[in-house]
């Protein structure tokens, strides 16, 4: 990891790049700094805290935030007194490890790599240039990023929302003191959408930033959580764009459950009410009437843009940029830049949110790896294994480490006292009080202590095992101890943080927690992790674009892939599509991709094939398939589910009754066929949200707005004098698709908005097809006679319960597959070894489906890469068959199908647990009426010893 480093030049080509990196001085030695903060305590220098959007000050020697990686201080050369004026030097004196180095110099290093991934990110739009919103002048107009910090528990106000957020908490300047007198808890907050997005009048950003609608809704909901339900939150918007998975539900909840006001209007101006710093907002309502409303605070929902330095870098590397100023990528290679071997991910690729960036990240990783597969594992290092010490039968010799966590714990708990107390507990041989138990030097010391004092159990009293247990377990292994001989207790989150005002009680509680942990550790035993054999073949279910992309990435890295497709050819729904929004010919491209797949020796395509049954678990799946009527069996180690979705069959707007009423896919077919009928038509109308965003299907189908807008442009281009209308609820041309929306309006396509309560009425009158709607600007009813009515139908999931059952993966209430984590695991399931991509996860356009396919492949590759070291967890349930009464409760209750009945042998009919499937949740253990089930690492005697240890003081 190279921090404070910038790419300055790239030489060479795909496969062999030489990259010059400029490393700026940190003035603190990375190896010596232990992150204790003694330097910052003594530092007199002050600077704006960028992490908190400059709302507060930080020291000149600083870490950005408590969880920073690496947790190493840095001296800011612009404000440090020593570096600017050669005065001070306090930090050098205060540092206990002599890590400060004022002589640190800038250096250029050259690295050699095979591929490059660019993920330089974005910058939030700077609204200072907008005079109508007065961001620079009014203290109560803030950006959404600033508001994000205001809401944060680690922000300047610790999550308390007040007005005058830009004024210091303890003001020193006269002007600040005057302003601080106006500080109050706001009663009314307004958000303005599209600040620096969808705007080419006041700035040059024509694109939609894709993320602001959702973050504004989130900020409004969280504001109400913080400040109470009485807080009045209003969001001023043009189109509400919530097209992502579960986003529409979140938006509906914001209106119905949280009472947030949504006002469709672009705000004209903001002025301060004289004598106060309240803000008068002037806007035109939907009827065109001018309205005035007073708010305590205004939050500007600033958009995303690519900073100039990144644009310069792109120019230097000859990377083509898009019209919207992002990296230019194609639909079929959505993470490849125009330069061979350079890939892109994140907001630099296109304005996008976290899940999409996460998918980009994995997709770019697999694309970058595709080029380098011959050199895989040539430069990575293998960890040396330390021989295990056998501790079975030995008397426990426990080492206890009481962490100060800087001042996080020590500031409240008397850690020295707790350490002395720990030494008095049974079996404790040694106790120590590190400043940071998690720092690298403490890990090294821990290994030494274990060896020197012959310790065989370790207890750490510090923060949460959720984040830190793996680190300490690794340290135990480095010292030759089994990692399950470790116990962690949380004296920070459960103690010092929550009992700040009662240090004595907190110290007492810390002693209780340590005593309990020690008593449990004394009973802990080394546990074995079973090795899982790994079949390196992968099965991809579904031969649409998402599945094909996953298969191609996997095969490029040398793995064998089976594609299961129920139709008679590859391509899926893409076979029905005409052009991408970027104008690429889909059928032409599909044909060449399918030929490429068929010629690929690593990919076996099974057409006309269905899956009859599936057994097994990660590394060892087995499916029976029927291919062209013949049954056979496939074994594989991982599965990618890419079964897609299908178009909704409409039952309204005269569909099926009048031939002139067609679906979006019908129009695509006519365009593919270059149908002569289209040339005869003089008018066409599109109706959006047919089957989407209603009570039956409360989600947005995501792709239909862009699809209709693009097809409207196609029609207008074929025949410029054709009248084209689009009837919509919100136009959701997110990202750079917004440019198409603008192009359509420029070409004369007419957009008419309707509400769910006033849907358009379609009827045949005297042989003509008539669409009746209300004009949203004039409020008048209007009639459109149209030669063609195109229904933008919803995308509906296949609700394939059989398949979900085969792989033990969940479907949501709408019938889409549920991924592991909405943000951080969008291409995999919680079930190990099963991955997800394409519209079976949620409706998505081709480029996003391909990205997700590549991402699913990348996630599968990380699993396949573990071939020889894939293990089960040690904390799994175990059956004592002597006690088992064969009642079957464990078999019925387990959500992972881990318990089953033995079919043969001495204990035939009794339960057993498959450790590969067991997640160690303990459900079966708690429900076993015979006391036959145990959870290893959480044995009954261990739990009771903890309870009894607590009881000692009562």
């Amino acid at each position, binding site marked *: *990891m*190279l*921090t*404070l480093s*910038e*790419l300055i030049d790239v030489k060479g080509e795909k*496969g062999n790049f030489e*990259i010059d990196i400029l490393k700026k001085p*940190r003035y603190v030695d990375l190896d010596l700094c232990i992150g204790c903060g003694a330097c910052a305590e003594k530092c007199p220098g002050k600077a704006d805290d960028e*992490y908190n*959007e400059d709302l507060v000050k930080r020291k000149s020697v600083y870490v*950005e935030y408590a*969880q*920073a*990686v690496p*947790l*190493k201080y840095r001296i800011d050369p612009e404000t440090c007194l020593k570096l600017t004026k050669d005065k001070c030097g306090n930090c050098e004196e205060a540092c206990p490890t002599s890590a400060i180095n004022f002589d640190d110099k800038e250096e250029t290093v050259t690295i*050699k*790599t*095979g591929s*490059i991934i660019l*993920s*330089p*990110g*974005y910058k939030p739009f700077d609204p200072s240039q907008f005079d109508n919103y007065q961001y620079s002048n009014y203290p109560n107009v803030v950006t959404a990023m600033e508001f*994000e910090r205001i*809401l*944060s*528990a680690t*922000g300047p106000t610790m999550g308390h929302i007040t007005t005058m957020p830009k004024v210091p908490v303890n003001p020193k300047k006269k002007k600040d003191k005057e302003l601080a007198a106006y500080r109050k808890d706001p009663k009314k907050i307004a958000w303005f959408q599209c600040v620096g997005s969808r705007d080419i009048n006041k700035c040059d950003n024509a694109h939609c930033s894709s993320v602001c609608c959702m*973050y504004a*809704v*989130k900020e409004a909901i*969280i504001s109400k959580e913080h400040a109470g339900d009485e807080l009045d939150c209003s969001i001023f918007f043009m189109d509400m764009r919530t097209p992502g998975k579960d*986003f529409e*539900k*979140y938006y509906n909840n914001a209106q119905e459950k949280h009472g947030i006001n949504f006002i469709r209007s672009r705000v004209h101006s903001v002025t301060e009410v004289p004598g106060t710093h309240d803000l008068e907002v002037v806007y035109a309502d939907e009827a065109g009437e001018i309205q005035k409303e007073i708010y305590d605070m205004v939050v500007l929902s600033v958009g995303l843009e690519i900073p100039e330095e990144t644009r310069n870098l792109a120019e230097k590397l000859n990377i083509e940029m898009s019209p919207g100023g992002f990296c230019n990528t194609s639909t079929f290679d959505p993470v490849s830049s125009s330069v061979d071997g350079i890939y892109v*991910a*994140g907001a*630099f690729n296109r304005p996008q949110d*976290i899940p999409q*960036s*996460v998918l980009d*990240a*994995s997709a770019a*990783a*697999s694309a*970058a*790896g595709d080029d*380098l597969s*011959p*050199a895989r594992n040539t*430069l*990575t290092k293998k960890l040396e294994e330390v021989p295990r010490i056998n501790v079975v039968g030995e008397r426990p010799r426990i080492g206890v480490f009481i962490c100060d966590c800087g001042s996080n714990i020590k500031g409240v708990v008397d850690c020295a006292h707790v350490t002395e107390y720990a030494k008095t507990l049974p079996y404790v041989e040694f106790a120590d009080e590190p400043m940071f138990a998690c720092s690298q030097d403490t890990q090294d010391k821990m290994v030494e202590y274990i060896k020197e004092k012959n310790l065989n159990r370790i207890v750490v009293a510090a923060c949460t095992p959720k984040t830190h247990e793996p680190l300490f377990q690794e340290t135990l292994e480095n010292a030759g101890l089994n990692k399950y001989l470790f116990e962690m207790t949380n004296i920070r989150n459960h103690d010092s943080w929550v009992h700040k005002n009662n240090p004595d009680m907190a110290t007492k509680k810390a002693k209780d927690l340590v005593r309990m942990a020690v008593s449990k550790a004394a009973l802990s035993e080394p546990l074995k992790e079973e090795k899982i054999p790994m079949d390196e073949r992968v099965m991809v279910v579904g031969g649409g674009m998402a599945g094909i992309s996953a298969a191609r990435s996997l095969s490029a890295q040398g793995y064998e892939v089976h594609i299961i497709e129920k139709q008679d050819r590859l391509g899926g729904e893409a076979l029905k599509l005409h052009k991408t929004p970027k104008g690429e010919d889909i059928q032409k491209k599909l044909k060449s991709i399918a030929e490429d797949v068929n010629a690929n020796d690593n990919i076996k395509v099974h057409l006309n094939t269905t899956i009859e049954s599936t057994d097994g678990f990660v590394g060892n799946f087995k499916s029976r398939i029927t291919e062209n009527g013949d049954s056979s069996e496939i074994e594989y180690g991982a599965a990618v589910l890419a079964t897609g979705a299908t178009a909704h069959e409409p039952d309204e707007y005269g569909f099926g009754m009048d031939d002139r009423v067609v679906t979006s896919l019908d129009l695509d077919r006519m365009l593919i066929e270059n149908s002569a009928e289209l040339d005869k038509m003089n008018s066409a109308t599109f109706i959006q949200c047919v089957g989407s965003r209603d009570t039956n299907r409360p989600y947005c189908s995501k792709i239909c707005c862009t699809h209709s807008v693009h097809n409207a442009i196609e029609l207008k281009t074929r025949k410029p004098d054709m009248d084209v209308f689009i009837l919509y609820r919100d136009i959701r041309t997110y990202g750079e698709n917004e440019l198409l929306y603008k192009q359509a309006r420029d070409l004369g396509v007419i957009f008419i908005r309707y509400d769910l309560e006033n849907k358009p009425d379609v009827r045949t009158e005297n042989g003509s097809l008539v669409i009746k709607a209300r004009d949203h600007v004039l409020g008048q009813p209007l009639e459109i006679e149209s030669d063609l009515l195109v229904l933008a139908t919803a995308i509906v999931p296949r609700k394939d319960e059989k398949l979900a059952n085969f792989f033990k993966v969940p479907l949501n209430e709408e019938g889409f597959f549920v991924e592991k984590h*909405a943000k951080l695991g969008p291409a995999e399931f919680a079930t190990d070894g099963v991955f997800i991509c394409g519209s079976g996860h949620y409706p998505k356009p081709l480029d996003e489906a391909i990205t997700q396919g590549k991402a699913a492949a990348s996630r599968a*590759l*990380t699993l*396949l*890469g*573990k071939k020889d070291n894939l293990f089960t967890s040690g904390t799994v349930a175990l059956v004592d068959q002597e006690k088992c009464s064969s009642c079957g409760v464990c078999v019925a209750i387990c959500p992972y199908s881990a318990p089953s009945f033995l079919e043969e042998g001495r204990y035939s009919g009794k339960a057993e647990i498959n450790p590969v499937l067991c997640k160690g949740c303990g459900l079966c253990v708690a429900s076993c009426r015979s006391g036959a089930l145990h959870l290893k690492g959480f044995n009954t005697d261990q739990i009771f010893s903890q309870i009894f240890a607590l009881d000692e003081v009562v």
Partner: protein
Amino acid sequence: MGNNVTGSVAVIGGGISGMLSALDLANSGYYVYLVEKGPAIGGVMAQLDKTFPTNDCAM
């Protein structure tokens, strides 16, 4: 190009995309240089308070 390629990747930018690209690559057998211009990795996501739709802590 043939087999004569370097088995490492440079990832420029240590935000959420860069970090996860680096992790995926490292776990599939490639050496990664993660290059970040700031003093710590994490990017903009580390500045966010909570994330929708679950309102999980961004950190």
